[in-house]
């Protein structure tokens, strides 16, 4: 063996098995070509893109504009429609809070899915809370008006009942003109992880400002029919926000085909650096957003703050590479995934794929290994980086809300692993993973009471389990 690094031998001793990274939905390594593009902007080209009076600034600005083109090209947008942000979470926050605030005279309703990313769901919850707080305030004011005196918080519940605030027409008028926060519809998905277009259309109201749907789910990789969803949004005059963080650069996506108005993107999911992302904001017809960050008015006033030049350059390069290599990479990943699934399913019984196999990110495989708990399985596979829907791994004791939303039962969530193949995954790695996963599942099933019962033909679903 060629020991090029003096640390290699001790490192190997500490890590007896080679580490394999199969968690490419969590993050991806920076592509060497991306790093090369970034380096000058971490060294000699350190200028501020806002410095309009000297060459350092011009150099930085030119780099930003090139990256803006590269990012825009990935999704068929114009460069001027790209707003750089710190990443997906900020993009999702800006899209929803920014649109709800700017278009508050139109309405206050959002439609989204139960399986969306936390950056969307938690933003929605915050907007709901904002509205609920204002409604409470209005109730107090109305009671004070009716009683002609100050009302304390403790008195509120009983007084609300006595004065039947629920039916109070003045209060109804006030709350109907309320311009704060949002009301949110969280649509369920089908067992295959996909949206139902008819129930989506039914959920749209005259007061719906924006619908927020992901291109691809981060856990089960399910692809949503964004083009059809976008058409429905257009028809009903609703803004369409696509959280394309997991899908962009992996599968074809075009803002015109999807009739998208707002699109969230993240660099580190497509082999670029962390801490940089973008929000596409349609210019024709012009969509406007209230900013989250106020300041020097960067990014067309939608996102103040000195631009992260090395990050932006890397993100741009990553998008350029993804655009060129997307199709061949997707083919390669689909073949690798096929190899992985065939390898696993040919050697183990009681395994199943969660959600649709057809409408799925090329590198994603979410598998339920029945009767084996996900956290235990991950321990057994310690040097393989994976993710589980099991509650035990998260420390929250709640199994994955995405898997639960599929209606497969919580036990499926507890038994599931997410494999995320990526650009640098190899056949040899996949074969190693198949062998190790199979061995681990077999060992844990030998210990598993549920496996023994299932083998004996016990109906576990209708079995009378004790309360725990």
């Amino acid at each position: 063996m060629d020991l090029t690094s003096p640390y290699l031998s001790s490192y190997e001793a500490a890590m007896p098995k080679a580490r394999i990274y199969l968690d490419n939905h969590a993050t991806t390594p920076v592509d060497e070509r991306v790093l090369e593009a970034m380096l000058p902007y971490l060294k000699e080209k350190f200028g501020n893109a806002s410095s309009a009076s000297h060459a350092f600034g011009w150099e930085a600005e030119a780099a930003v504009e090139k990256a803006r083109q590269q990012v825009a090209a990935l999704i068929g947008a114009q460069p001027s429609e790209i707003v750089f942000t710190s990443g997906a979470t900020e993009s999702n926050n800006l899209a929803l809070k920014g649109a709800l605030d700017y278009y508050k005279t139109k309405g206050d309703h959002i439609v989204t899915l139960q399986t969306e990313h936390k950056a969307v769901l938690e933003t929605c919850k915050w907007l709901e809370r904002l509205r609920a707080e204002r409604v409470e305030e209005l109730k107090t004011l109305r009671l004070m008006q009716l009683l002609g005196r100050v009302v304390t918080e403790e008195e509120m519940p009983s007084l609300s009942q006595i004065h039947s605030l629920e039916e109070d027409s003045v209060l109804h008028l006030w709350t109907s003109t309320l311009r704060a926060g949002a009301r949110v519809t969280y649509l369920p998905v089908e067992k295959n992880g996909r949206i139902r277009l008819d129930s989506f259309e039914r959920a749209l109201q005259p007061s719906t400002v924006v619908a927020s749907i992901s291109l691809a789910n981060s856990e089960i990789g399910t692809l949503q029919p964004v083009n059809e969803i976008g058409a429905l949004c257009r028809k009903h005059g609703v803004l369409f926000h696509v959280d394309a963080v997991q899908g962009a650069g992996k599968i074809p996506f075009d803002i015109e085909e999807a009739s998208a108005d707002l699109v969230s993107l993240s660099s580190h999911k497509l082999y670029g650096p962390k801490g940089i992302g973008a929000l596409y904001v349609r210019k024709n017809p012009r969509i406007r957003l209230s900013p989250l960050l106020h300041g020097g008015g960067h990014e067309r006033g939608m996102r103040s703050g000195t631009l992260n030049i090395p990050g932006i350059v890397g993100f741009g390069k990553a998008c350029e590479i993804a655009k060129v290599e997307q199709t061949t990479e997707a083919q390669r990943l689909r073949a690798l995934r096929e190899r992985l699934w065939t390898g696993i399913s040919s050697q183990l019984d009681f395994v199943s794929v969660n959600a649709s196999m057809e409408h799925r990110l090329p590198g994603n495989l979410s598998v339920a290994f029945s009767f084996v708990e996900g956290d235990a399985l991950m321990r057994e596979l310690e040097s393989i980086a994976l993710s589980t829907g099991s509650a035990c791994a998260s420390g929250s004791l709640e199994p994955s809300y995405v898997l639960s939303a599929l209606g497969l039962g919580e036990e499926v969530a507890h038994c599931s692993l997410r494999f995320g193949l990526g650009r640098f995954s190899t056949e040899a790695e996949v074969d190693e993973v198949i062998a190790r996963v199979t061995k681990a599942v077999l060992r844990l099933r030998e210990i598993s009471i549920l496996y023994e019962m299932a083998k004996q033909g016990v109906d576990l679903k209708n079995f009378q389990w004790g309360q725990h």
Partner: protein
Amino acid sequence: MQYSEKVLEHFNNPRNVGTLDSADPNVGTGLVGAPACGDVMRLQLKISNTGIIEDARFKTFGCGSAIASSSLVSEWVKGKTLEQAASISNKAVAQELSLPPVKIHCSVLAEDAIKAAIEDFRQKQAAAKTSEANHE
């Protein structure tokens, strides 16, 4: 979250994995937990005619801490009387395995499994006595 040394040791080398004949009048079986909660434990005890636990077997569906907790109690109960076994507390299990707070329920389940197995054995014994009495 990192597992403690002792959890890892039991998880990697679980003791007394297996199945005893649940129809045997000297075997008590305790099945606790539920798949939806993420852990199910079955503990079986073989009790001698003098009331000593002479063998124990377990099978568990659950995280590493749940497997380690069941493995540990399967060792602990052996050679004990039913009263001694029934007095094994979840606290002792949690302490021995240095379980973090979110894994305390694994040790509770292990304690429940011992109690359920003893209860099953006692019910069997009582039923056997009744049927003996009926035969006489």
